[in-house]
């Protein structure tokens, strides 16, 4: 190993971006091809600095757009190497064309997506529009709620993604500015421990293996395309979740930090519960604790793995709940939110006949305050007390002007 090690304290004060950059350094990523975009710039800045300072034996490739960045990553992954990059919002949207190539070619790439609103109007703050944009692309999607998660989930992402049974690219999402630029205490792993968890990169069908030449990115028409997509879907549905669970279990043994595919909080005897993603989970947990003091049996379900969607785990977590709120942080633009749809789908054929309401909040970085959530929990409790849904199916939280509610 020709690179320097870095001495880290047990707890470092890092923001989500720097935590992700440190995770890329400790995983010894071979190639990072990136085009910077707010708010994910510091991730690749950090990696580039570590590379130039001799902490990583890797290559930082400067490209002319996010489309080229992902294309270069695909090329590097096909050549046979550990590859990662980072992007946000408009850059992510420009990457979408190549995201499907990456997953279809079954290349292990880790993409740190720092969630940010999609224009127009142009906005640099956090919402989940870009995360929702990529949800059909065939990538595994993990969601971090805080810098600590952003650091840890990168290791899990490399490990799951590069597994020869899985070989699917993986995104790690964190909330723009709220996670990415908010410094918190992050419990670190030593370089050796972290690299030991991720393991050496094991190539598979790499193009630099001159003994076994392969053609990557072939064309299939109506005679083969369906089979390839079916295979990819089958692997996502059947193979990925056990691997993620195993990685989480191993990570707990290594660090003592427990991650779950679905993060349940106070759900054992909950009547009302909120299902959400990102930093809102932590806010909702605090409010749920306060609600318990007021006698409302409140719980929170945070989803850690967005794709493949954990239908069974969600159905298990929501068993016995009477009223559920699905909080979507992305403009549904003419339908109900994605989480509302997925949760309705998870519960539809089960015995859980809960009242489900969809809420849209926080677009373009608008804050979701504790007051909002208190009112929301009380609304859910009112539904239970009335024995029927008294609120519209879809409501907007925190928007100025007359109340917005539909259906």
């Amino acid at each position: 190993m020709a690179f320097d090690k870095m001495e880290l304290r047990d707890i470092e004060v890092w923001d989500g971006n720097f935590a992700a950059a440190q995770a890329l350094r400790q995983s010894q990523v071979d190639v990072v091809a990136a085009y910077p975009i707010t708010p994910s710039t510091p991730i690749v800045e950090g990696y580039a600095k570590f590379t130039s300072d001799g902490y990583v034996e890797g290559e930082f490739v400067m490209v002319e757009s996010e489309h080229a960045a992902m294309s270069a990553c695909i090329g590097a992954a096909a050549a046979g190497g550990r590859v990662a990059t980072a992007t946000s919002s408009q850059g992510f949207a420009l990457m979408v064309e190549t995201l499907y190539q990456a997953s279809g070619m079954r290349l292990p790439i880790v993409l740190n997506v720092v969630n940010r609103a999609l224009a127009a109007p142009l906005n640099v703050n956090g919402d989940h529009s870009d995360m929702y944009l990529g949800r059909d692309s065939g990538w595994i999607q993990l969601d971090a709620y805080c810098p600590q998660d952003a650091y840890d989930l990168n290791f899990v992402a490399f490990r799951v993604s590069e597994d020869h049974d899985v070989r699917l690219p993986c995104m790690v999402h964190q909330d723009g500015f709220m996670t990415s630029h908010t410094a918190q205490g992050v419990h670190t792993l030593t370089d050796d421990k972290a690299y030991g968890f991720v393991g050496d990169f094991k190539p598979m069908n790499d193009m630099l293996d001159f003994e076994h030449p392969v053609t990557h990115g072939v064309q299939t028409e109506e005679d083969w395309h369906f089979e390839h997509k079916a295979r990819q879907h089958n692997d996502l549905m059947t193979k990925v979740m056990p691997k993620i669970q195993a990685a989480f279990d191993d990570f707990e043994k290594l660090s003592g930090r427990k991650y779950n595919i679905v993060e349940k909080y106070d759900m054992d005897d909950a009547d009302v519960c909120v299902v959400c993603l990102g930093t809102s989970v932590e806010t909702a947990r605090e409010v749920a604790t306060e609600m318990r003091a007021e006698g409302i049996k409140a719980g929170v379900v945070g989803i850690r793995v967005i794709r493949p969607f954990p239908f069974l785990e969600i159905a298990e977590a929501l068993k016995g709940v009477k009223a559920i709120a699905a909080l979507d942080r992305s403009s549904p633009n003419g339908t109900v939110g994605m989480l509302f749809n997925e949760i309705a789908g998870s519960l539809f054929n089960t015995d859980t006949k809960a009242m489900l309401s969809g809420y849209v909040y926080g677009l373009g970085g608008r804050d979701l305050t504790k007051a909002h959530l208190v009112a929301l929990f009380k609304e859910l409790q009112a539904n239970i007390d009335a024995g029927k849904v008294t609120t519209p199916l879809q409501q907007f939280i925190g928007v100025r002007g007359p109340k917005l509610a539909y259906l």
Partner: protein
Amino acid sequence: MAKKGWDEFEIGAMLRTFDGKIDDIAGTRQEDREYSQNSSYTASVADWRLIKPVFNKDYCIDCQFCWIYCPDVSIISRDKKLIGVDMDHCKGCGICVEVCPTNPKSLLMFPEQADEETEIANWPKKDEEEA
């Protein structure tokens, strides 16, 4: 090739060009290589062609221009002597004719249905250089 089900092929939309070992593949002639079923070597694209190159060896100087320029490696050359065109993979682009330096050209494009012997018998005469 038998049609396989969705769980019966290698993942990743990738194909292998050769079956087995590839030692000294560059020194092996195409017809002697162990191409796999998936290799395009075994696929004919002759039906893409509308016009075809006809080779007249009487004028050829074996300069290898057409061989190096052909985008489909369809010019067959043995021991630095041009011996003809691989009609399974030629798509009739005409680049070989364009780069041929002889006068008259040793390769000319003709309609797909033209008879080669007739065309060679009626090969154009040398272009006189303009004074």
